[in-house]
């Protein structure tokens, strides 16, 4: 159970986040959406403990985040960053193993190796397990990091309740098959009772995958609900500045949008329509 209460973050005289509250039950799949600069990454940083908010607080299962020591926090949540680079090249297998060895989970060597090999297989990098990180493509690097995150999650799960999983644009540099595969991995974690919170840019992908969509706009929560409740013509115009009416996929009535029919509102058009 994750509880975020009245979060405010002020930087350089500007509120990056204001009065943001949300809660997530075990097993929930939550997608955070919003235009660039809406505060999505800031909110993720606050929820993972990377950034201390100016107002409000975050609690894991009722325990305030600020009072959880770092080492213990690594057993309560794992985080997949947006992009990453390594100055000194580890191999894929070594990167994945960091998810177990750095939080120092008390697992024997055989269990560690079993978890690492399974994580590498799940993210589809078995063939590149001995490749060094600097030789990977952007998408492969992201999946190597995901393998590390999975190692941390699974090592946690062997010790206690399923931890929280935070994903910052996990599908950004992936092809369609890998986008779906990564979200399947997240779903599997949710089905084991873990809470998954992901920043996504693709509204269709978010609507198809998440139980709940949280729409951020200018540092505040604009809407919080199921895809059917949230993905509306009004929201698309107000938040994303696009005139577009969503369709629905029967029989579950999951909304979808087709960019072919979209019209940009004046303030977002990079090319003036007047010529």
């Amino acid at each position, binding site marked *: 159970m994750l509880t975020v209460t009245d979060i405010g973050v002020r930087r350089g005289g500007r509120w990056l986040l204001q009065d943001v509250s949300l809660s997530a039950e075990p097993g929930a799949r939550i997608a955070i959406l919003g235009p660039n600069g809406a505060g999505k990454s800031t909110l993720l*940083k606050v929820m*993972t*403990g*990377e950034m201390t908010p100016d107002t409000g607080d975050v609690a894991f299962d009722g325990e305030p985040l600020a009072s959880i*020591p*770092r*080492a*213990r*926090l*690594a*057993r309560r*949540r*794992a*985080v997949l*960053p947006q992009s*990453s*680079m*390594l*100055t*000194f*090249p*580890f*191999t894929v297998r*070594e*990167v994945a193993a*960091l*998810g177990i*060895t*750095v*939080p*120092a989970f008390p697992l024997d060597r055989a269990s560690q190796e079993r978890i690492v090999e399974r994580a590498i297989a799940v993210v589809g990098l078995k063939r*590149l397990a*001995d*490749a*060094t990180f600097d*030789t*990977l493509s952007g998408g492969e690097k992201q999946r190597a990091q995901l393998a*590390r995150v999975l190692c*941390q999650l699974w090592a946690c799960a062997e010790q206690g309740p399923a931890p929280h999983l935070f994903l910052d644009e996990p599908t950004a540099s992936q092809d369609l098959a890998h986008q779906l595969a990564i979200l399947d991995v997240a779903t599997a974690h949710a089905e084991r009772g873990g809470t998954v919170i992901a920043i996504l840019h693709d509204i269709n992908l978010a609507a198809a995958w998440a139980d709940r969509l949280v729409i951020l706009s200018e540092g505040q929560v604009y809407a919080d609900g199921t895809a059917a409740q949230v993905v509306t013509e009004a929201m698309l115009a107000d938040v994303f500045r696009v005139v577009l009416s969503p369709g629905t996929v029967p029989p579950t009535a999951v909304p979808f949008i087709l960019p072919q029919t979209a019209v940009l509102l004046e303030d977002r058009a990079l090319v003036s329509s007047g010529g």
Partner: protein
Amino acid sequence: MTAVATGSMRQAVSRSVRPSRPLVIGAAAVLLAASAILSLAIGATGISLDALPRVIAGLFDPAIAADPAAIRERLVLLEIRLPRTVLGVLVGAALAVSGAVMQGLFRNPLADPGLIGISSGSALAAVSVIALGDGLLAPVVQLLGPYAVPACSFVGGLVATVVLYRIATRAGYTSIATLLLAGIALGAIASAIIGIIIFGSDDRELRDLNFWMLGSIGGATWPKIVGTLPFFLACLVALPYLSRVLNAFLLGEAEAGHLGVSIETAKRIAMFAVACAVGAAVAVSGVIGFVGIVVPHIIRLITGPDHRVVLPASALLGGALLLVADVGARVIVAPAELPIGILTALMGAPFFLWLLMRRRGGLG
């Protein structure tokens, strides 16, 4: 067609065959042992290693110990070469480990205690004491006697670290970039002041100063080793923690935090460990360059960046490199001695270049 070609090329470049951890550490330990034997066996007096059994026997048998030749052998081996060897191992290990820790902490292959001004701070303090010992700093020399130079050198290294940390830390957050740049600036200032002191000093002092700038472990004595040992040990104690934490730092600071590392605590421990090791090393041997950059890189090229191998293997190889360099320093212009820094650079740099070129060849 293209896909197949790219795929096979990538197989060639990206597979990394890495020797196991015990193999690398074991090989480095063997090298260190061989270097230590070399260091004990070679010297200006012509006493070789076959004197060692007689010396050991003399420790238990007063009849053998009373022999004048045995007294001389014992003096050379136990009071000159052995402390010099022990000090060489300590200094080499401290410099190599400090380099490895700084490079890991800064995620920058150029980071080195010499680069962020810790060595320069130590050296400036030492040089000041030598040059101004008869005048301005006479009370310090009177108070500390023969320990004035090493003590001030150690304090200089610590002061440099604390000043750097203050400059680079705002509201509890240390900026690595600011630390690195401030370190370069502080190092430049320290070097400039050292240059001014050299310019204004007479010949005898200049020779001493040169020795401080290029290093030597020729002044090794048991009291010096005992005096600096606690600082070397303080660094050693931090290594198991640092090896785990620095692996996480290679992913980035935020990622290290996600994996449960207390980032600011880790930085403080890393910097304190380095200040201890470098301050102590400069105090007894002056500024010896290249060990801190070359040794960790050689280890990384062989075994990859895992600090659980890099830190212990760097310590062993650093000790070995310094001992071999010291043997060269004693032998090449015997009975005089070369500054050891010249030899560490001459030995370390070409090997480093060869490894780099070999690696680039492999990368196509």
